[in-house]
């Protein structure tokens, strides 16, 4: 049993890590009352940014490059939506298409047809002394890459920041009622710019994690829908930090289970396995149906065009 369980849980954490980065970034953006459905384009930009920067200055530089590339994409989104007051859904869609097309073109320009091959600098898992020798928990939670450990610190920090700090409160206020936030003297535009850029940097880190901590190479379109999954994760996590993190784990688990079931050689149509994560989302969303907890401003396109 343990021979199956540990690789499964290990794969769960590994798969959930990049998803959690993107979802937490999207969470912060949405808490400010703006939905950025261009996360997919941001992630793929983070993948390429991470690859290029890592090639120039090593893996650590790669993560920085990924975050910057993601924030750069998010800046385009913020400019269109906040400054030019364009429709956020259309802008987000365009951002996704732009990201996928632009990274493909740049990748071929930079690396030619031979590609970056498999020699990308990457970070290896680190077994944390002491903790990693705990039974079950050790090999699952404490033999991961630094990006997973960073997340262990980041999640409580973000939860605290949103709940307890003045800036966090201001961000949530903007997301709940722009008018009230304005009346209270909050700089709505600035807060939203900040939230969108932060979301972009996190999406970029998701991409860099994929390239530098998980796969060790870049392929065009390798974001493969993770941006849209991140948006679903935020909904499933009910716009809460811990909830979103758990939802990312559930998705990671569903993907890991899918890999495991296919590898176990069951003679079922593979489409069933591939659909598993999405079926699970639908079931969970239906089961957890209750009081709507989305930031109120998300529903109000009008609020963006008057910001």
């Amino acid at each position, binding site marked *: 049993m343990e021979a199956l369980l540990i*690789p499964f849980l290990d*794969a769960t954490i590994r798969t959930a890590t990049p998803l959690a980065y993107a979802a937490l970034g999207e969470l912060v953006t949405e808490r400010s009352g703006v939905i950025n459905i261009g996360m997919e384009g941001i992630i793929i930009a983070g993948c390429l940014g991470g690859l290029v920067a890592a090639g120039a200055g090593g893996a650590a530089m790669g993560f920085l490059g990924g975050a910057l590339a993601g924030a750069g994409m998010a800046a385009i989104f913020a400019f269109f939506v906040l400054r030019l007051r364009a429709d956020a859904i259309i802008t987000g869609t365009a951002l996704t298409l732009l990201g996928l097309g632009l990274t*493909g073109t740049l990748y071929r320009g930079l690396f030619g*047809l031979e590609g970056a091959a*498999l020699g990308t600098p990457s970070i290896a898992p680190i077994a944390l002394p002491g903790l990693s020798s705990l039974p079950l928990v050790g090999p699952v939670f404490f033999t991961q890459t630094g990006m997973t450990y960073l997340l262990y610190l980041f999640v409580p920090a973000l939860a605290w920041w949103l709940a307890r700090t003045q800036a966090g409160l201001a961000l949530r206020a903007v997301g709940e009622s722009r008018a009230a936030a304005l009346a209270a003297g909050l700089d709505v535009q600035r807060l939203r710019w900040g939230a969108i850029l932060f979301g972009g940097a996190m999406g970029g880190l998701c991409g860099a994690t994929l390239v530098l901590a998980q*796969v060790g*190479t870049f392929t065009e379109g390798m974001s493969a829908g993770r941006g849209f999954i991140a948006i679903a994760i935020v909904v499933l996590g009910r716009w809460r930090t811990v909830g979103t993190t758990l939802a990312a784990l559930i998705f990671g688990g569903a993907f*890991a289970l899918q890999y495991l079931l*296919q*590898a176990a050689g069951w003679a079922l149509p593979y489409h069933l396995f591939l659909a598993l994560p999405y079926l699970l989302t639908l079931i969970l969303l239906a089961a957890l149906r209750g009081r709507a907890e989305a930031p109120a401003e998300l529903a109000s396109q009008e609020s963006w065009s008057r910001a």
Partner: protein
Amino acid sequence: MFYSWVRRSGIGFINIGLLYLTACSGGERSGGRESAFQVALLTPGPISDQAWNATAYHGLERIRDSLGASISHIQTKTPAEFEENFRQYGTKGYDLVIGHGFEFQDAARRVGPQFPKTLFVTTGGEGTGPNVVALSFAFDEPSYLAGMAAAAITKTGVIGGIGGTELPPVKLGFEAFLAGARLVRPDIRLLVAYLGNWDDAGAGKEQALAQLNQKADVIYQNADAAGLGVFQAVRQAKGVWVIGSNADQNRLAPEVTLGSVLIDVPHAFLLLARQAQLRAVRGPTIHFGTASDVVRWVPNPLAPAPPAKVLAQMDSVRAVFAAGGRPVVTPR
């Protein structure tokens, strides 16, 4: 002032502009004058995948270099795009338009009759008319030989196959892989998994790790760009092997690659283009098998060779294929 103008004139234009930029980034044109022999290629994925799509683009380049053709390439994803681009190239009067994959078949059948002067070719599938032609590769023959090589080197008796989606040629490749393996080692077990796409290298790697955990020690990848993730998983593990497909992938990771199931697409494309230039293509389906040397099993010289007995067996099987024999497979 500028912003209010933009707002009034409809920001949608700018967004559409972005979309257009993206849509165009995949296409490129090169080559000479309008009168030249014009050849277009549609690939279902990025030509930087070092596999199925890359080898097609090399084929297109070879047509340009050897025949002085004017070439164009575009990357397409959905069946609607297949048809639209076929139609575009037909309207522009291209002589030869290649849809690189089984999945282009339906679009070629629909568009072909409307542009009788253009030769529409799909790699894979069946041709249907004078200008709707298919190249059929006997992918199962080298896959069968790969299975024999895999069976000779596996210690656990478990081998794996990872595909992008379950296209008939991909599925047939895995079936032949198993049949070949069983010839050498009757008790062998094959794990087959599909990723659902051809781009997600992360999924490719995780799926390979899951198969390795199930004791597979040779994995045959046929997932294009996503297959690079399979290579990465095998490189991380110890004492396990990967088999490449479509292109010669032995150079990608020479230390862990057993060999490649090669389709010499550039060679096939050049043969096709020469005939097309002379208007001498004999369709509707052109078969390329072991006899034509377009499909072959390319062992990695750096990997251990199978025992002499298996090598001799492989030689005799190859001779049967070259003489027109076909692998016998049991559908899964």
